[in-house]
């Protein structure tokens, strides 16, 4: 199996504080990798460095063998790297359908062709498939800002999958989602992982969710990887227990 995402020696310092220190890992095709760690362990900084929102102080990021360190988020996205956000990030004044079409349109042809081309950029069917898949049909024409929190989380995820990405980074997908919706979300994510052959990296606080979803887990503490392995291995690792329970 080839590595879809390869992170080598990544570090990020803010002033004198090393938020992420010498982190290296690989994610293979079709894998669902979980990254867990206590608050402030550098998970979000790591994500932002991978996604081009922050420039790493050292180290490199490769996607399908191609160096993408410091690439702009929009260019990275068009290479097939997609993400969801920890806090809700939808376009509140646009309908669910419009949100989804927007999520796919920039992947079609050149900018000028989109000005004179079809209004839906040929994405109506794809958007409808996403709407059905994430069970948003009853709110498809509603403005996204009017949706419930859980529905917006689903929409956020649906948008990340709209362009058929190779790699999706999910930042706390379960945060604030109620239990019924949570099971639903997990099952949808698993289904799309199997169907689209997409590779996932998930940051999550909800242990139960992460243990059930992921095939492999990295544990981060104080900016370093302290453990890695299957959910069961990680759960039993004394270093992990110490990091979470304190000294």
């Amino acid at each position, binding site marked *: 199996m080839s590595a879809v995402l390869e992170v080598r020696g990544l570090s990020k310092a803010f002033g004198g504080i090393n938020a992420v220190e010498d982190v290296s890992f690989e994610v293979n095709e079709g894998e669902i990798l979980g990254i867990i760690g206590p608050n402030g362990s550098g998970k979000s900084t790591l994500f932002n460095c991978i*996604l081009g929102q922050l420039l790493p102080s050292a180290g490199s990021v490769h996607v399908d063998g191609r160096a993408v360190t410091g690439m*702009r*988020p*929009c*260019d990275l*996205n*068009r290479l097939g790297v*997609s*993400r969801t*956000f920890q806090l809700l*990030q*939808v*376009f*509140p*004044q*646009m309908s669910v359908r*419009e949100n989804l*079409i*927007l*999520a796919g*349109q*920039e*992947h079609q042809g050149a*900018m000028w062709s*989109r*000005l*004179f*081309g079809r*209004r839906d*950029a040929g994405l109506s069917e794809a958007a409808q498939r996403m709407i059905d898949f994430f069970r948003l049909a009853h709110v498809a024409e509603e403005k996204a800002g009017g949706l419930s929190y859980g529905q917006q989380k689903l929409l956020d995820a649906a*948008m990340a999958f*709209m*362009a058929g990405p190779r790699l999706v980074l999910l930042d706390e997908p379960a945060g604030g989602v109620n239990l019924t919706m949570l099971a639903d979300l997990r099952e949808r994510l698993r289904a799309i992982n199997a169907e689209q052959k997409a590779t996932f990296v998930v940051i999550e606080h909800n242990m139960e969710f992460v243990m059930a979803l992921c095939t492999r887990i990295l544990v981060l503490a104080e900016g370093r990887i302290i453990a890695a392995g299957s959910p069961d291995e990680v759960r039993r690792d004394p270093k992990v227990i110490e990091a979470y329970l304190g000294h």
Partner: protein
Amino acid sequence: MKRLPAVLGLIVLAGLLIAPFALKPHGIYLLSMWAVMSIAAIGLNLTLGYAGQISLAQAAFVGIGAYCTAILTTKFGWSFPATFVLGAVLCFVVGWLLGYPALRVQHHYLAFVTLAFTTLVYLVLRNEEKITGGTYGISGIKRPVLLGWATQGARDYYFLCLLVLAVVAFATWWLVRSPWGRAFMALRENPLRASSLGVDTRRYTLMAFAIGSALGGVAGSLYAPLVEFIDPSPFALGLSLNLLLMVIVGGSGYFWGPFLGAIVSVLLPEWLRVADGLYLIIYSVAVMVLMVFCPSGLLGLAERIFKRPKAANAAKVAT
């Protein structure tokens, strides 16, 4: 009910075509000014209403367009269409460059940058006497003859303005309904999310500025022959604020907002003249009341009124 907008549109269009035959020259002049200001406001609505980039520079672009036409037609004998196109292209390029600060600063900081630009252009127009005529301005700007159609008369020139407005309106309508319009709105609502979905926020921001500014230039190009004499004073900050008022009062981000806003800004003061010295007070109070009770403008108000019964019915069904 669904046909209502189409019927309403036809009535308004018929009114606009018939009106000049019933109005005195001053009335026709005001309608022409409405058309010209609508074009400038449509441009600003694109930049501000759709793409969410605040700009107080629209008056400067109207000024650039107006002076481009005035100088080149009176001093160099250029034809009007050539100066019209050049004015629009020039404003597109300058607008593109002015967009660069918008990549770094937002909201009130961007307002200040664009305000400074308006002041800069005003000072250039006033001080570069050799080129612009300074405070004496440029007089004798002739209305053009286009393919044998002489537009010297008030009515003919009005139809020219209306024709350009129609073309601009159609092009803008096309643009905001295209994926570009969607990308502009995404820029307004959540640039961070937009960029993570592959939207090249840098290029779209610059494009929003450039296209909006080009429409300011188009309006200016029509403005100069309409008033036949220009000096720098109409292109100062006052006009920028006035255009901003048109966009916001009409309904920022609504396609028809600028048309309505221009009515409020150009025609309403004239209608209120019967109130004599009080008209400015009445006018400003009316605008303030509207802004307090309906910050989304006249069209936002209309949407609230017409959508409420539907929501109320839905609530009844639910209970």
